[in-house]
């Protein structure tokens, strides 16, 4: 059983609370278990983030999540080279950055440290690294250039893309060894290749062709759960019936793939875990209602990884519950993980630009802006009872619902979490998400009386983000919030 496999986890670099550490370990374990399983010759599947994970859990199948992987690769600053690698394979740069990264990866492309073929040494990027500090902690200036000197220990090689298939074809020897050793080894870059794929297009339609492409590359089975787009807040019974039949078909196909019978009991357990995780996730998210909040909403973006990769596992539920207890304590003592005093509270709309997290955070920090609402809270916190309700829950993904539902989710958390403004990410990668944001912005302003600002960016491809534009927009939002605040205070 996947839950019983214990895999040692690397020590975390920075000091974090046990709850946060537990959440990190859960995700680390999902990847580690998949790697171990692959080594033992067991099957590993790739799944879209809102495929009903309860189904694969019922078979004890190992599943990893390309969207989470792509976000991780992007956050590790390898999004651009991987996107470029996909473009070299013929995938247009208009395509979702996650899809491009994933398709490049599926094709065997890997980020690697750049090697000097003559010397066998890594080629160091002169722009990398942190400034060198002397014993008193002062930055050392290079007398020749007048610029700060770099600490050689923190400097890194250039990143290039290598190809596993090419490496495999090399004769045994030095080159093969060197190139293998140069491949980056963080968990998302050593995720096992798939033996089957699980696709659910409730997130987007792009997913359908993305997974078909992977199935073709590896000649492997694909299970497709199609969730038709919804035009009403209520999901019609016809949709439920259509999707339920697909769940049943998926179970049959999983029986074929795994060679095992569907285990009702395990399924129930996975459902129970998923419900517990969802409840605990919502509980954690709800701590952002406190003023000031005991954490930064950006933390939720990181914890999303657990909701995506492990919501059917008991460990994820445990970890979220632990975090909730910690936050409760923080609220009592008045502490917060937010590294600055909270002056304004906003909803951050959309997926963050993973490669640019520090750039996103910087002007928010400077202006005392805490993100206290993200749509992921209601959009991933599904509690259900029984198969039909489970089907209904999977109909409600961020991009499969009508505008009224989308607005209701967002305005609900904006009210509950008392936001002063909304910052909207017009995400080049995500057409269905960004496609009705302009209208949503108008509604937020009308219904909530809060200012909104939009900026252009991308969840994975750093080339589509402009830090200067972002800062200006944040500035504009802060000014508008300031005006609102004064009006409110003046009115009192």
């Amino acid at each position: 059983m996947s839950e019983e496999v214990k895999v040692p986890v690397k020590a975390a670099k920075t000091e974090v609370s046990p709850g946060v550490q537990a959440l990190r370990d859960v995700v680390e374990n999902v990847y580690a278990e998949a790697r171990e399983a692959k080594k033992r010759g067991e099957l590993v599947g790739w799944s879209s983030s809102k495929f009903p994970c309860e189904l694969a859990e019922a078979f004890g199948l190992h599943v990893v999540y390309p969207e989470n992987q792509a976000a991780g690769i992007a956050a590790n600053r390898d999004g651009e080279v991987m996107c470029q690698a996909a473009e070299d394979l013929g995938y247009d740069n208009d395509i979702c950055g996650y899809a491009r990264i994933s398709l490049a990866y599926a094709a065997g492309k890997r980020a690697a440290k750049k090697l000097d073929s003559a010397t066998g040494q890594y080629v160091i990027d002169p722009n990398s690294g942190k400034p060198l500090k002397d014993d008193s902690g002062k930055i050392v200036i290079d007398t020749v250039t007048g610029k700060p000197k770099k600490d050689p220990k923190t400097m890194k090689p250039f990143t290039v893309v290598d190809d596993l298939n090419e490496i495999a074809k090399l004769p045994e020897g030095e080159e093969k060894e060197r190139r293998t050793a140069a491949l980056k080894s963080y968990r998302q870059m050593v995720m096992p290749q798939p033996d089957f794929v699980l696709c659910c297009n409730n997130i987007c339609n792009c997913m359908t062709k993305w997974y078909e492409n992977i199935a073709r590359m590896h000649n492997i089975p694909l299970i497709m759960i199609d969730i038709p787009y919804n035009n009403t807040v209520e999901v019609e019974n016809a949709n439920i019936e259509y999707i339920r039949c697909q769940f049943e078909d998926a179970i049959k196909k999983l029986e074929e793939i795994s060679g095992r019978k569907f285990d009702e009991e395990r399924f129930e357990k996975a459902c129970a875990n998923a419900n517990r995780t969802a409840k605990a996730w919502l509980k954690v998210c709800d701590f952002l209602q406190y003023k000031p909040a005991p954490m930064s909403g950006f933390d939720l973006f990181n914890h999303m990884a657990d909701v995506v990769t492990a919501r059917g596992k008991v460990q994820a539920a445990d970890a979220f519950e632990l975090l909730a207890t910690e936050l409760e304590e923080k609220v009592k003592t008045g502490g917060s993980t937010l590294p600055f005093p909270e002056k304004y509270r906003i909803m951050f709309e959309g997926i963050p630009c993973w490669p640019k997290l520090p750039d996103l955070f910087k002007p928010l920090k400077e202006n005392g802006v805490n993100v206290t609402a993200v749509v992921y809270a209601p959009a991933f916190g599904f509690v259900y009872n029984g198969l039909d309700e489970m089907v209904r829950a999977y109909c409600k993904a961020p991009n499969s619902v009508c505008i009224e539902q989308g607005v209701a989710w967002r305005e609900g958390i904006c009210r509950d979490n008392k936001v002063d403004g909304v910052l909207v990410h017009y995400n080049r990668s995500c057409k269905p998400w960004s496609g009705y944001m302009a209208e949503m912005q108008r509604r937020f302003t009308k219904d909530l009386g809060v200012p909104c600002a939009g900026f252009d960016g991308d969840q994975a491809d750093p080339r589509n983000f402009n830090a200067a534009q972002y800062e200006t927009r944040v500035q504009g939002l802060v000014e508008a919030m300031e005006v609102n605040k004064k009006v409110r205070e003046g009115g009192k």
Partner: protein
Amino acid sequence: METIINEFKEIAANPKKQLAMYKKQGKKIIGVLPYYAPEELVFAAGMVPFGVWGSNNKNISRAKEYCATFYCTIAQLSLEMLLDGSLDDLSGIITPTICDTLRPMSQNIRVAMGDKMPVIFLAHPQNRATSYGLKFSVNQYTNVKKELEKITGKEITDADILESIKIYNASRKARREFVKLASEHCDVIKPTVRSAVLKAAFFMLKDEYTAKLEELNQKLAALPICKWHGKKIVTSGIIYDNPVLLAALEDNDIAIAADDVAYESRAFRIDAPEDIDPMMALAKQFANIDCDVLLYDAESAKNNRGEFVAKMVKDSGAKGLILFMQQFCDPEEMEYPYLKKALEAAHIPHIKIGIDQQMHDFGQAKTAIQAFAESL
């Protein structure tokens, strides 16, 4: 023949005039956005289905209030026309949601139209050929039917639908026939003409259209098959009805042997059965469409669509393929690498030309077409 061709040309170039004409006749007209809406139901309701696939003669301005720039111009310009009054004569519009652009666009259109006109939502199933997929299609089409009935105030009977299916099947057959004849007589049916004839179908009642097209087909069939000294290619993509692009093909003696284009053959490859329940027949018609960038391929591990297109090129006697890639169209873009793979495996040369409906500079496209023609 000249007269019929000119009529088609006139209609294809002036959809607005058609709209006004039908309106004047007292008919109700229903806009139909891409893709695969069961137009048969509109016809069965006694209304005029009217294709709305953007425009080559408009600028995006009002639509900007709803949508960012990274969406295909087809969707943006369709919204633009709904906003700027060009489509005020419509009595309703059907919004399918089969791609990621059309999903949010269906919402924008519903919001933007408000009380102006009914917006009829349609979500097709991707697992469409299974028994439950068919049932879901029937359910969705029944919703469409009900909405149409509200507009006309009349019930659409099974007999009406069956009659409409027959007319549509005949129309699809005539268009398939025309595509073949256009290749055999590519000296007469140049790319511009071919495009106009197929485009006119989107703005005409199908019985009227088919009668005219059958007449043209007859006349073409009577001509001796032409000895073409230029190049023959297959076209692929969503739409390539821009006159400048079509002229560029003609200028380089390129004839079209067949197409894998959404606005052309992909729209009429498959007929509906005439011997079963008519709503189910429409569901089956949709379910039987395959090898399409927009539709899930149940045999995912195979490269069915790529190979299908490569075979089409071979079977049609074409020497190469031009892919008109609609900018920001991710379904087309996602399928390109495997189309390329299949074409290369079959030793079929191809080029990919990026286009959109707001194109002003055709220099690059023209050069690419010329170079490609010379290389064939």
